[in-house]
């Protein structure tokens, strides 16, 4: 469903990604792991049209989208839950969620989507009229994911959803990602929590210095000596 082939992304003269290719099939969870500065967030920005690749192609459901506007990319079914959450702090939780449903297709099923989101994150129910800026970090992450779901995406991209959360909450977030996936949404998951993310993923890609260094199924990668040494400290 998503196929990124040979993209180069630059910030000024500095290459952040060189010749990167990844793909996500319908119904899959795919993890992209790598250390700080490897280019993981840049990859998501390229897919959602925020940072244009210099070369290469990005195809979603067989349509080239590497020059498409972000708003159109959201409309056709890719949602990006970014690093740092990027919520609307002075708007309420409910307003934040509603803002996730920008297009007619999503607006039509807004009540059902909202119900689903509150089902995944019951904690948000009692916070609906609270300003998003006053939420705890964990709650903000829930709103960010909830907002991402409100566009009824076919592919949801999550940038380090477990960052800064307490261990209990981390397991919970991974569990919810799996539930979202079981409902039919493909997931592209970026994580530094290598063990946890590869564990729930069908396949994974390892980014190092802006290149794909390794790829395989979640199990293969977890068993790979390179991963065990570099990322799991085993």
């Amino acid at each position, binding site marked *: 469903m998503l196929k990124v082939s040979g993209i180069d992304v630059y910030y000024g003269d500095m290459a952040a990604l060189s010749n990167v290719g990844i793909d996500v099939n319908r119904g899959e969870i795919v993890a992209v792991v790598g250390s700080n500065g490897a280019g993981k967030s840049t990859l998501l920005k390229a897919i*959602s049209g*925020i940072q244009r690749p210099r070369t290469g192609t990005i195809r979603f459901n067989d349509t080239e989208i590497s020059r498409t*506007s*972000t*708003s159109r*990319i*959201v*409309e056709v079914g890719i949602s*990006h839950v*970014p690093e740092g959450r*990027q*919520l*609307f*702090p*002075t*708007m309420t939780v409910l*307003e934040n969620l*509603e*803002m*996730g449903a*920008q*297009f007619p297709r999503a607006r039509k099923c807004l009540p059902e989507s909202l119900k689903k989101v509150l089902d995944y994150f019951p904690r948000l129910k009692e916070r609906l009229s609270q300003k998003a800026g006053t939420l705890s970090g964990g709650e903000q992450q829930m709103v960010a994911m909830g*907002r991402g779901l409100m*566009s009824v995406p076919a592919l949801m991209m999550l940038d380090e959803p477990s960052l800064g959360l307490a261990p209990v909450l981390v397991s919970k977030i991974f569990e919810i990602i799996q539930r979202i996936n079981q409902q039919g949404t493909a997931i592209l998951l970026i994580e530094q929590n290598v063990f946890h993310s590869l564990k729930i993923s069908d396949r994974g890609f390892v980014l190092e210095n802006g290149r794909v260094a390794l790829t395989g199924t979640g199990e293969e990668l977890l068993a790979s000596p390179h991963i065990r040494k570099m990322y799991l400290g085993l």
Partner: protein
Amino acid sequence: MDPHYLLQLAIQGILLGGLYGLIAVGLSLIFGVMGIINFAHGQMMVMGMYVSYWIFVLLGIDPYLSLIVVAAVIFVLGYLVQATVVNRILDYPEAMQVLPLVAVGLVLENTALLLWGPDYRSPQTALSLETLWIGPVMIDVSRLIAFVLAILITTGIFVFLKKTRTGKRIRAASDNRMGAILVGINVNRINNASFGLGAAATGAAGALLLPLMPLSPHMGHDFTLTAFIVVILGGMGNLIGALAGGLILGVAESLSALFLPATLKQVVSFSILIIIMLFRPQGLFAGKK
């Protein structure tokens, strides 16, 4: 000191302050969404005054009745300035955003000069000389109407931002630009609409001001400055703060007549600016960075 005179000045100040508030809400809205200070804001207000003036002179339509048309014309002006100038400079460092907007102000000012000459004009509208006595206090009817309409328009803008889909998108873009882009909002279009709306607010204020003071091409600067001070007073990007700041400045300026000659009125606003910058640079009500 005569308490009635004091009351009279305070009321006049509040009435004028409502207009300052409306002008500043426009400036603050633009700043909130784009982080840009519209240095042509006062000149846009003057454009509103001229549009209103010519509709009055040529068609005989009272400024209060043509208000919506004037606001619409200045909305288009703001929208075009955004689409042609401001969208190109959004990512520039702040110092480099100043000149293009000052330039827009100069172009507007000189366009007015070219089209309508340097003369002062004061139209005699139906209500411009009417007064009203409430006990011992005299109120100009046009001042009262201007205040009431300014508050209504400001409230209208608040409701628009709170309730409508476009209004919510404007708030979202103002709150977090990247977040707005990521949920699929066309932020360029929202920028245009926000600049248009901010300009329309100041244009409407111009129309309301028309019966109250003589009109000339060069009066824009002072209003840009006043609006800027009000916005700093209320907290940059804080709309309620802008309204409150407008009322405060209006009263302060008006009361200054007790101890300052009218020509030194600006001493008050500058003093307020300096005091605020020294002791509470974030504004009386918290704003954004």
